[in-house]
């Protein structure tokens, strides 16, 4: 079937598959679809289960770092042992069979990989050590309670991108299409049924807006772009979860073996998406790099590739990190941590940072996996990925931005969904009494106070049984010395829980005339 001449082109036409490869591809797509549905479903308060947390708990990098940072074992984390055992048996099968980011990268590597002498030969093998150095940095930082680098975990990348970039963009496209098609009367009824079928589940009635959506998208886009340099560039060189699983895989039971029949035709090398098949080692591969995708099996014309069980032989390759490099990584991380800790935080900046109900800055940043599930579940879109608001180490952790969305009085979903209880699990009643901020009226901007006109929206919106915003009737002499009676809003800070609906609904444009500040931003004893 394969012509002896014709090089890569002929090889592309002859790309072979076998039932194992088909099974792998089926599982990959199935997992990708299921995980995506689970992320979408997070917003549904009547969801059957927190299925979306299963992959998170199976991810040993997330569970290990969380364990190091918090010194507590969270429910579900035990599942990561399953992944570890599977890796001891089958190597980096997670990467090749399960990981949604890996599957995405496979989709975007539409063309079969190029052989080394035409494609990624120029990439030094040494680059493969990068992922181990990143892993070392992540683990050390976690030991000191910093999980900022979990933005590099492939699961969180996938979850975050779907939540804050792809779904909002899709929402906009969908709504724009509906809006323009709605003008054609004969389409109205079909749009109505499409709408009632898709809207509540997929998109909220108020459009999804996220700060950082472009940054989050570029992060994913960059990883996909790297695929142009080499297939699964991310998995080979950068992925810290791949590094962790790779380390375990070095002692994997089932490893790739090349038989005596091999005549060195290089076809397996061309088929390998991670480029780990090394002609200089008799076409053997590094178990720490192999994702068990099995593409090399059908590629071999002599059926000399097999994956038998055998006693593992641990080997440290020349491109794996040396002690010196490892120490450098640890040192850089330590310096970075110290710098972050010593960075001055301007109190006036932090006054505006409102954390999800029941969480405080230190606890949140020490536990949060940056997975964005809470952001997805927040019905008002008020929970937003932070930029540098609570420090550089708070990047993409959740914070409430009341001007974008308020904390819904009838909702406690963020604590329900959080896989690591970085946002505590609160009953609705408890959440309704949890203070996340305090509202202050800016009398210089307020319609009633500054312009002497009726408004009262903040009072109307206040959800508390005994309203924290109250009105005081006042007689004011207006511009023409006419006596005007007006209702002036005031905040009873003993009652206010800082849900922010007043700030959200304040009809003053741009900056609201009533704003929620961090609850301890005004704790003076006077």
């Amino acid at each position, binding site marked *: 079937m394969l012509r002896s001449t014709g090089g890569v082109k002929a090889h592309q036409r002859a790309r072979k598959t076998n039932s194992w490869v088909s099974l792998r591809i089926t599982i990959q797509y199935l997992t990708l679809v299921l995980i995506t549905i689970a992320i979408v479903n997070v917003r549904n*308060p009547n969801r059957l289960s927190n299925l979306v947390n299963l992959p998170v708990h199976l991810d040993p990098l997330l569970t290990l770092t969380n364990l190091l940072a918090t010194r507590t074992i969270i429910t579900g984390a035990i599942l990561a042992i399953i992944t570890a055992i599977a890796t001891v048996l089958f190597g980096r099968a997670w990467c090749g069979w399960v990981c949604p980011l890996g599957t995405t990268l496979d989709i975007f590597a539409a063309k079969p990989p190029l052989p080394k002498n035409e494609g990624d030969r120029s990439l030094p093998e040494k680059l493969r050590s990068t992922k181990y150095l990143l892993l070392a940095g992540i683990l050390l930082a976690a030991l000191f309670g910093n999980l900022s680098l979990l933005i590099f975990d492939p699961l969180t990348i996938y979850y975050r991108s779907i939540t804050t*970039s792809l779904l*909002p*963009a*899709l*929402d*906009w*496209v969908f*709504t724009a299409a*509906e*809006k323009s098609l*709605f*003008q054609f009367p004969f389409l109205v009824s079909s749009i109505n049924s499409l*709408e*009632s079928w898709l*809207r*509540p589940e997929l998109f*909220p*009635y*108020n*459009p*999804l*807006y*996220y*700060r950082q*959506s*472009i940054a989050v*998208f570029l992060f994913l886009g960059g990883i996909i772009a790297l695929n142009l340099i080499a297939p699964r560039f991310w998995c080979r060189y950068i992925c810290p979860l791949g590094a962790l699983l790779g380390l375990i895989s070095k002692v994997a039971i089932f490893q790739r073996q090349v038989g005596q029949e091999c005549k060195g035709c290089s076809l397996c090398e061309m088929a390998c998406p991670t480029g780990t098949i090394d002609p200089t080692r008799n076409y053997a591969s590094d178990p720490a790099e192999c994702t068990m995708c099995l593409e090399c099996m059908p590629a071999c014309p002599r059926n000399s590739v097999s994956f038998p069980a055998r006693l593992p032989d641990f080997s440290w390759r020349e491109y794996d990190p040396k002690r010196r490099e490892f120490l450098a990584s640890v040192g850089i991380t330590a310096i970075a941590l110290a710098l972050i800790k010593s960075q001055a935080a301007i109190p006036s900046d932090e006054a505006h940072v409102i954390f999800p109900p029941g969480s405080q800055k230190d606890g949140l940043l020490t536990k949060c996996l940056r997975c964005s599930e809470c952001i997805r579940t927040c*019905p*008002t879109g008020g929970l937003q990925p932070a930029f540098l608001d609570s420090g550089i180490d708070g990047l993409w952790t959740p914070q409430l931005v009341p*001007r*974008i969305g308020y904390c*819904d*009085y*009838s*909702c406690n979903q963020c604590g329900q969904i959080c896989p690591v209880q970085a946002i505590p699990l609160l009953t609705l009643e408890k959440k309704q009494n949890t203070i996340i901020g305090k509202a202050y009226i800016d009398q210089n901007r307020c319609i009633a106070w500054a312009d002497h*006109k*009726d*408004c*009262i*929206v903040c*009072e*109307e*919106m*206040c*959800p*508390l*049984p*005994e*309203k924290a915003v109250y*009105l005081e009737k006042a007689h004011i002499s207006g511009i023409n010395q006419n006596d005007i009676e007006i*209702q002036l809003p005031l905040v009873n800070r003993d009652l206010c829980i800082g849900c922010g*609906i007043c700030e959200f*609904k304040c*009809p003053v*444009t741009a900056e609201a005339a009533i704003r929620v500040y961090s609850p301890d931003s005004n704790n003076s004893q006077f």
Partner: protein
Amino acid sequence: MKSMNRREFLKTLGLSISALALNQTLSGCTDRTSPINQQLPTIEPARQPTSSTTQQMGPANSTNPSAPVQVPSGSPDLVVARNGEPEEMVRRAISALGGMQRFVSQGSKVIIKPNICVAYHTYEYAATTNPWVVGALVKLCLEVGANQVQVLDFPFGGTIDEAYSKSGIAEQVKLAGGEMVGMPRFKFVRTEIPLGKDLREADIFDDVLKADVLIDVPIAKHHSLAQLTMGMKNLLGVILDRAAIHRNMGQRLADLTSRIKPNLTVVDAVRILVDNGPTGGNLADVKKLDTIIASPDIVAADSYGTTLFGMRPDDLSYIKAAAAMGLGNSDLKAIRIEEINVGA
């Protein structure tokens, strides 16, 4: 020059569209308040109020031009039913007005607008309309052959789905055979208000504009600016920019009513909220009155509603403005009122 092949073209197109979509997503952060339908052409109103609805005054006003059945002579302008189960009170009140067939003809499309303003509490807290009152109206409409009965509101606190189910209204509407519908933003269309004195246009929900019959089912509640929220204030739920109504509220509510005047208003006073409205949450603020007010005249219904709170129609700016515009009768002495004691 290298020509672009189809695949490349599609790639470029896809990338451009995604970039545009992302850009819009982000720019929305700073432009939250821009109405989504600003560029949409106004859709021709289906239920344009004619001069006959707006000019008539006094008892004759109860003749509704869109009503399919001639009003039985001697039927009251307004019915108050008391001391019964919600459904029974609604049935007796509507029947005293001449039956639902007076308002709903065979095959017509009905929209019922209860007050489902927040997703916070169950109906006992009197922040949302009594579910059995809404359910009874759905049944009545279907019994006289309505083709479609849709129930809708756009809550300001919490999500639409949460609010629909928490209020108990979704359940009763479903049991009655009606349909709860969502209110996506693109279906609010910029609409002129020809009779408006201050509010000249608003983004109004398209289904409401197109419905054959609109039934307004408010719950009578305290509200700091309007003082009381009843039928006219409840119409706020079908427009997009509610903040705008908070300025010069009395006139603007009357203006809005002139454009989407309901065919029937049923004020739910099974329970009323006397303080901390419109959101409620404290049972101490709730008073159980077991009363239903029904009238084809929204102004009359609201006017009678004030008496439940010990107030007079003239105390409310929107009733005064609406009466001045001729939208209905606020003179309780001139309105023919039938009182029914269901419990007796």
